[in-house]
């Protein structure tokens, strides 16, 4: 009786946790890409729903201001509009909240021009 009650309790308390891990699966531009023309947006695609919490873009260590409207929204694909970018090597740093409650983060880089 006690065992059955305990088992039922475990199932009940664990029921709300049906969430999947949402790692980053693709970016546009891809990591290491060399582009002839500057992209007009950044695209981050996650395996599941994720909230993008932080995103920064830097060229030679100097941060480039970005439109932050996309932050904190729940989506599998996040599109971030970019200002006009000059030729150079860019580094993107991001942090997001995975659907399973885990914080995930990463970086990727791309080059515009030669």
């Amino acid at each position, binding site marked *: 009786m*006690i065992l059955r009650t*305990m088992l039922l*309790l*475990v*199932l009940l*308390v*664990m029921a*709300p*946790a*049906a*969430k*999947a*891990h949402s*790692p980053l*699966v693709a970016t546009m531009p891809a990591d290491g890409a060399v582009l002839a023309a500057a992209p007009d947006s950044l695209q981050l695609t996650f395996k599941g729903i994720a*909230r993008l*919490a*932080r995103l920064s873009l830097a060229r030679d260590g100097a941060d480039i201001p970005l439109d932050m409207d996309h932050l*904190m929204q729940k989506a599998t694909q996040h599109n971030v509009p970019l200002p006009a970018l000059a030729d150079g090597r860019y580094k993107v740093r991001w*942090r997001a*909240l995975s659907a*399973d*409650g*885990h*914080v*995930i*983060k990463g970086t990727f880089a791309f080059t515009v021009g030669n």
Partner: protein
Amino acid sequence: MDIWVLILPLVRVILYTGMMLVNGSIFYGLLLGAQMTAGSKAHLAGLVRAGALVGLAAVALQVPASAGYLGGDVASAFDPLYLQLMLETTLGWSSLLAAAGFIMAVWLPRLAVKYHIPTGGLICLLIASAFAVHGHATTGGMVTRLLLVIHLACVAVWLGAFLPLHRLCRLATDDPVALLELAQTGRRFAQVGSITVALLLVSGGILAVFLTGSVTAMVATDYGLALSGKVILVSGLLGLAALNRYRLVPAVDSGERAAAARLSLSLRLEMLIALAIILVTSLLTTSLDLPMPP
């Protein structure tokens, strides 16, 4: 250097320590309570209370620490937006379950270790479930979550016995009553331990396959390498457990006081390895990401 990569696993280590102390002591009381003296029971209740306070401190720290990790700076740990975001995830539910279990353990430590299965069982369930509703264990649905609860229960039975047994070893060198209690408890623990270790290895093995996805990932990813390190540490712990079971406990059983001192040393080594296992597990559940599926 991202300071949260260090802080978050440290908070997790504190949480695991609280869980091991509370659940381990409760299981020890429930499984071996019949052979305990009043002094041992009081010591066990003290461990439950201490573990519960440690656990509560970790619960209070884990939400701000996660918010700080999400934002990537110290200010984010106190930012209401980031804190709310973290509380809205399964971390919020997990913290609530853990807090409920630890608060019960602070109030009812003596009841929890005195064969009162509903109280002790409820506390253990609440705390173990807190680990199963948040994080990587949720990836495989109810199967991995139940496996984790079983795995944590077995870990608590095993590691939770270290401190009470170590106390008995110290007392047994010049107290015949403690030597007798140690011999009886050691015999009983050897029987319980066999089943526990078998369950622990099976549940841990299945969980590893679920989480890494392949044998290759065990050596080709940071997560897999850390998991392999954990397996090596557990193997060391198993070696010492075998030494205790087949050499030292029978020697204590035959009345050898010197064996109690050797068992005490072996238990101290086991506690060190257990701490290393907790450290690796904390990294696995916080800073390291699951391998990408092929």
